[in-house]
């Protein structure tokens, strides 16, 4: 029995070491190279990725319009990933095509009374173009003007959609109305830093819109450090495996802390960021268990498969908010969790579904890994 235990312990340690071994900067570079290769090899001739139609039986309940919306949101993330990756002529060409497609194709419309997933396109379209506006490759005309104009189109859509409490969501709330009436902490948090940066670039960004968004995320922040999924007039934790417990909020904690920190909230100190990252790695098994589960929120603490790469990307952004000296240790841990999940063909995936699931997951992985490499601080 002792021998069996010893063998088991050795096995566990070996597995842990194996995962840790995947955390070097070289591992990250190799992973990024494979992932970018995958994206380029799967890019459509027009610069986009995937299709605008449902490709999976898991997603037949959504409105048809949402698949075009996700295609464009996934394309925006691919642009961000290609901007983050080390440049080659091949990357540069793929990025130019992808950005052109994002600039020129029509904005998605609302899908149905309840399905307003087109908000994701506004959020990530804006994020990608704010990143592009700060990228040296797009400083010349006509890129510069086109990027600004299109980004402001996304901004106008966000302005029109911002719900009365200040957030953005992707399903309709208690009232079906032109302006949405339900939002989530993470959909809101994911765009706050880009709004701050756009304002910093002198773009016509309404400061009250940003304040409302920051306030929305702040109100979702619970005393235990978790972020509620959405903002209700009175926060609820129903007990047991609640999604609003820390174990159900691992990715939202990173996104929320990063958004508030970048939004100027002085309460989000380095200590708060460290606590969130520590919880992320301590309870990482809940994200592992949920990854690739086909039913949303079916895992422990109602974690969904698609929390995985979103959470890791935002963890990388949080790490880059900490003093430089302590970043590498955190990035090393993070890289290992990303590299271990990469498919052989270079793609990453956390939720089975249409192709946009692969584009967003692979892009988030590239962005998170690139954030931990020299020059990664530009991914903010």
């Amino acid at each position, binding site marked *: 029995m002792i021998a069996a235990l010893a063998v088991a312990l050795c096995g566990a340690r070996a597995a842990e070491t194996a995962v840790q071994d995947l955390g070097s900067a070289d591992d990250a570079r190799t992973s990024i190279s494979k992932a970018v290769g995958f994206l380029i090899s799967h890019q459509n001739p027009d610069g986009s990725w995937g299709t605008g139609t449902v490709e999976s039986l898991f997603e037949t309940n959504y409105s048809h319009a949402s698949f075009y919306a996700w295609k464009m949101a996934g394309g925006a993330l691919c642009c961000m990933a290609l901007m983050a990756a080390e440049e080659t002529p091949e990357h540069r060409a793929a990025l130019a095509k992808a950005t052109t497609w994002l600039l020129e194709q029509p904005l998605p419309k609302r899908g149905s009374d309840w399905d307003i997933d087109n908000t994701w396109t506004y959020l990530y379209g804006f994020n990608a173009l704010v990143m592009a506006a700060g990228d040296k490759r797009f400083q010349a005309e006509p890129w510069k003007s086109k990027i600004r104009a299109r980004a402001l189109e996304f901004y106008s859509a966000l302005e029109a959609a911002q719900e*009365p*409490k200040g957030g953005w969501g992707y399903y309709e709330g208690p*009232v079906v109305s*032109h302006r949405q*009436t339900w939002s989530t902490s993470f959909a809101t948090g994911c765009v706050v830093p880009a709004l701050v940066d756009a304002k910093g670039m002198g773009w016509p960004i309404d400061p*009250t819109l940003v304040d*409302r968004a920051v306030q929305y995320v702040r109100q979702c922040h619970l005393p235990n450090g978790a972020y509620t999924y959405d903002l209700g*007039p*009175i926060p609820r934790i129903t007990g047991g495996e609640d999604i609003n417990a820390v174990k159900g909020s691992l990715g939202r904690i990173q996104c929320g802390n990063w958004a508030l920190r970048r939004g100027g909230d002085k309460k989000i100190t380095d200590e708060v960021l460290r606590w969130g990252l520590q919880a992320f790695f301590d309870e990482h098994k809940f994200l592992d268990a949920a990854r690739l589960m086909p039913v949303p929120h079916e895992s422990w603490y109602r974690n969904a498969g698609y929390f995985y790469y979103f959470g890791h990307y935002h963890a990388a952004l949080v790490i880059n908010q900490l003093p430089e000296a302590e970043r590498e240790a955190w990035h090393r841990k993070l890289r290992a969790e990303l590299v271990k999940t990469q498919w052989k063909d270079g793609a990453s995936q956390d939720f089975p579904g249409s192709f946009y699931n692969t584009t967003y997951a692979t892009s988030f992985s590239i962005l998170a890994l690139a954030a931990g490499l020299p020059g990664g601080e530009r991914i903010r």
Partner: protein
Amino acid sequence: MKLPNAFLVLPLLLAASACAASGARTPEAGSPPPAGGKGDDAEGAADKITKKERELEYAKIELEIAKLSAAADSREAENTVTDATQKLDTAKKDRENFKDLEKPNKLADKQLDLDRAAWRMEESKQELAELEGMYKKEDFASLTKELVLQRGKKSLEFAQRGLELAKKDQEGLAGHDLPKKETELDQAFDRAEKGVQEANAKKDRVALETKLKLTKAEHHVDEAQRELEKARSKDKDKAPGKASVAAAKP
């Protein structure tokens, strides 16, 4: 099962006695008609004996019928008592279950409904107040805010109406429905108790009636037996007449 057998036996007995009587009265084939005078007297005596014999047979059968009837009446009375006792037992258990379990449970259940309705109202009130507080902070999205607040106000109004209904429901249950059912169960118990008393009284009466019927039937048999013996005795005293009748036969 005994009664049908008795009914089968009865026609046979009647048929047998009828044949016996016919055999005694009907002249044999080819014999001359009976002469008048002493011969007629003898014939009259013989008829009398036959009649008495028949009456004895009838009395015996009637006694058998009386015995079977008595057994049936007794069984019926016994079954009536058993049924009435079972009904009483059921009525007693229903009443006990209602008082010990059903009534307190229904009251508690309704109280829970009432408490929930009160809490729903409180929640709606709190949420509306919080929402109004959040919305007041900034002049923004006033139309959407108004739509959402309208839902909140309606939700509070419905919660208030739900609470009023729950209160009335509880009053109706505690003040009318449950007391009515309790009274009905008490009445059912009283009726069942009286039913048992009646069944026992009927049983006693049937026992006496049965005894009377049987005694009468036994006496009837005794009397018929004595009448027959008397008739035979008289006939013996008139033996020559009887012999002449016999002599008249070939």
